[in-house]
């Protein structure tokens, strides 16, 4: 069965939310730690407001790039309904970090489908460790909704097989060329994520 030395993280959300970037930062951090890493990218149709997931797997040696259902240790969910959709990918007792900022697709808006009444309540009933926070609103208050990314990375920073500082370094390196203001803002978002999830 799966090598237990491999860490499996599923990042899930909606096209345009920065799911791929978050996964990329996780993967490059693991790479910087000298680990073998595989990471799936989703392109094409899924970018257009569709569901986006990225599988990040790292360890001494990674074989298949796909995380089988029931084998993810961590689910980093950028949207509550997506957390629910992908919860079955987690193993029993797995960790779900959920941004509670809901985003309804047009098919819900026009009344063809219903958004779940209480996604967090449904998640709480599953045998998982669920932490949540409204990273969407927090990001907008910090000045840009794209900061969700850094908040979410902060959320799992203390649950990884490497230190939070390494992840933060890898994150901030991306903004190095874009000025100190952005670096400071992303650091703030990351640190907020580290502490805000309850």
């Amino acid at each position, binding site marked *: 069965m799966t090598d237990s030395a491999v860490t499996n993280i599923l990042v899930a959300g909606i096209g345009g939310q920065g799911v791929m970037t978050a996964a990329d930062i996780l993967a490059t951090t693991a790479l910087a730690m000298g680990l*073998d890493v595989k990471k799936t990218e989703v392109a094409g149709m899924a970018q*257009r407001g569709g569901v986006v997931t990225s599988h990040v797997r790292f360890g001494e040696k990674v074989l298949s790039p796909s995380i089988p259902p029931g084998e993810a240790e961590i689910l980093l969910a950028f949207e509550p309904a*997506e957390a629910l959709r992908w919860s079955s990918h987690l193993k029993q007792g797995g960790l779900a970090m959920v941004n509670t900022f809901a985003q309804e697709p047009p098919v819900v808006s026009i009344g063809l489908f219903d958004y779940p009444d209480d996604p967090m309540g449904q998640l709480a009933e599953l045998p998982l460790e669920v932490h949540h926070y409204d990273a969407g609103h927090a990001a907008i208050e910090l000045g840009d909704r794209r900061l969700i990314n850094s908040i979410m990375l902060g959320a799992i920073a203390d649950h990884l097989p490497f230190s939070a500082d390494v992840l933060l370094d890898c994150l901030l390196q991306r903004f190095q060329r874009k000025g100190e203001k952005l670096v400071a803002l992303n650091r703030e978002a990351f640190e907020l994520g580290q502490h805000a999830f309850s």
Partner: protein
Amino acid sequence: MNAVNPVTVAQRQFISGNEAVAQAARDAGCRVAAAYPGTPSTEILEYVANYPELYSEWSINEKVSLEVAIGASMSGSRALCAMKHVGLNVASDALMTQTLIGAVGGLVIIVADDVGLSSSQNEQDSRYWGRFAHLPVLEPSDAQDAYDMTRAAFDISEQFEVPVIVRLTTRICHVKGVVEAREATEAPQVGGFQKDPARFVMVPGNARHRIPMMMERDNVLRDFAEQTELNRIDPGSNTSMGVITSGAAYFHVREAFPDIPVFKLGFSHPAPVERIREFAASVDQLVVVEEVEPLLETELKAAGITLQGKELLPKVGELTPSVLRPKLAGMLGEALQDAELIPTTEVFPRPPTMCVACPHLGIYYCLSHLRNTIISGDIGCYTLGAGHPWNALDTCISMGASLSTAVGLDKGRAPGDEKKSVIAVIGDSTFLHMGMQGLLDITYNQANVTVLLLDNRAVGMTGGQDAPSSGLNLHGEETSQVDFRKLCEALGVKSERITEVNPYELPTLFKALRTETKIAEPSVIITNQPCVLTERYSKLPPMTVEADKCTGCSNCLDVGCPAILVERRETVVKPNGREKELSFVKIDTAACTGCDLCTNTCAPDAIVPALNVNAINAVEVK
């Protein structure tokens, strides 16, 4: 001119299969690379474009890209073309004859199968083309393999004077892994074009002589397959089952059954039948794990090797560990460990949508409000018009098919369909790829078709790449830009039957559609606003909804813009006693770019420019 940059040996890079192919082409001294964008192969040429030492282009379509590569190969240069699976169907006309000519400079055809249909109109197995065209097929299993095998493909191509197919799948193209590049090869000598009509001019008299040579080449390649290190056996302690596999499935097999012997086929066609026969003798039971079609399985069974394949495994989709385990664990006598899985929760679907402010939104708003139409569709973002809320696309087959299918829909009208308007919807890049011929057929045969040519000056679906409609080449350099009005005129559409419209002006659009569908002649309506994913698009200040003015009529929701959200619903009873559901809306001002389309649909003028909006997009984070 032909110098290649030295790369650091053993440098650990974290790159996708697509980027690995690009690097390998550069490191192999490839001099010409051509492609038409298509998921999942698009990024290959985007990465190649970063290397100034080799010529690279967006070609008009995949057949053209192959022919560009063929020409370069005939000149003695190493050449590559890249395409998605359906692209090779388009290129196959050239392929089936080029196989007789062979390769002079290394000629590598990268084809990416969209196993699992992430963004394609079908799922097909391009390994068939290797059989059909008598060409070797290499199958990388990850990004490192993609690098190594693309390099090997150039060598094999020159060694055997044969075009080589490298078959990727989505799971190779779009998976990043650790790749170690090797020292770039010394740039091979470019011999220059040597006239050789008996080889390069494929008329019957010449082609006839080349066919036996191709057959002989098959034999040589078969011997090579038995020798090459691209095919290898991973030993395993549990020999009660052995697996023969290739491509992405290799790692899935290794993950699912770490202890069994695995025959990894990197050079999968022609198959190394004798080595496989030996392997078969070393295990109790043999299974072929190949994604999509049972090609190897059929060939190996025909060679008298006892094995199983698609009796056990699906012919559709990826063969991931979670697919393989339940199907094959029994053969190992392993009980399926039924780990207690978290139950799955049914959640609403979240299909892909058009972008906020997409110029196609207005088109589909109008089309969804027209009655008595047959709307023939094509391949691109506008295929999404088949979905909610528009439901305004009736067919989608292949690149350019909207126009030619429309001819048949018109000419084959059944009694009762006389009054229906046949409309063809196609984008600029798709039109230039394979649609022009269809328009020529419409005018030549005077079909009663209204063509909507959605010119957003980009290949939108694959991310906004340039095309002749944008006036920019692969490198973003200015080049000639197609004039669609002149082009349509040249193809025989009367000047007065060509209308250019701004797709954000709904009344103009409606008028043009009503007029042109009534006139029983070929007509073309060309839209003229850019794809919102490209730099040509300029955002405007966002709109907002004045809540007290919104009557809940939901007209604006018919636009289908993802920035319009329902805030609350109410059911009211109308004077006639019928119930009506009202949807009161708001606009996501952070997403809205002020295209103004929805204000056209709002009778009570509740949609107004958003003043006092916090500058929440002020910080650029990418």
